[in-house]
């Protein structure tokens, strides 16, 4: 089971950039912990904060996201992320490409499983 968890984490890394862009396109904006929860609820579990936060900052540095700290209610504040126009464009271009790639991969694996 531990092996399968590690496998899923490995698969998720390949699509995490796009998954984060897609989640932010849906919600408009969100912060790190909420994105982890949403990934989990979407059926993409086992993602660690230590993987997501550096990725969010890289997407921000690449100009695909914008980040803003906001004061929390009695807490230490939250860093909210939202898509830039460049991020929206990247999702529009890469999203369908990835979906087509995934369909092909699924078809290959399913043929092998049924064989």
């Amino acid at each position, binding site marked *: 089971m531990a092996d399968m968890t590690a496998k899923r984490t490995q698969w998720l890394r390949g699509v995490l950039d796009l998954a984060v862009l897609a989640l932010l396109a849906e919600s408009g904006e969100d912060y790190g912990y909420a994105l982890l929860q949403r990934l989990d609820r979407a059926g993409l579990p086992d993602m660690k904060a230590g993987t997501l*936060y550096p990725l969010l900052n890289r997407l921000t540095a690449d100009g695909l996201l914008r980040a803003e700290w906001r004061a929390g209610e009695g807490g230490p504040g939250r860093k909210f992320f939202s898509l830039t126009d460049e991020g929206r464009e990247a999702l529009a271009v890469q999203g369908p490409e990835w979906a087509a790639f995934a369909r092909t991969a699924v078809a290959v694996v399913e043929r092998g499983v049924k064989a």
Partner: protein
Amino acid sequence: MTVLDRKYRDDLRVALRLRDISGARVGEVLAEVEAHVAETGEDPVAAFGSPKEYAAKVSAQLDVKTGKPSRLQKLTGTLITGLLTYVGLTLLLDGLSADRPGVPVTPAYLISTVVFLALSVPAVMLSFRAAVALSGGRVCGVLAACALAGAMAVAIFPNSLFDGETVLFEVSRWVAVGLGAAAVAGSLGLVRHGYRHGRIVDPR
């Protein structure tokens, strides 16, 4: 609200600084970890990994534009700082302690300068690598210690190791003092610049 363990915070700060990540970026990372732990109550090691591991992950996602100098920049900075410090201190001390109007420049001085830099720069780079390495750090540490010992030997006994008799030319003692002081000031300026670059800023 859970407060981030002070030891984890301090260790992460040091691990990030040892990777030469800018103070602004270090502040950003520390704030993110603090905010996450405060909200979730998670153990920081479970959520982010050990400070060394997380610093390695953060560093892997950064480049020059996001607060991490290139390898060439680090090498050049270390080399220039080492050169200014060594040449500055030797000229300054030789000039101040000279009992005649000129300070002799010998092959020993020139060769020891080159050898000192050739040993001390790798010693510094290996020390940083030993401190941040997730594995194999001990080998780097031993190599760094050997290089440092060699550099110190060259700096302390240049005339015993190389030709200290032949005088290539002489520099007026006050010119030596002036050049030495300028070089030391330059190296202090570089250290000050590095300190300012590393000052941690909380983004919140």
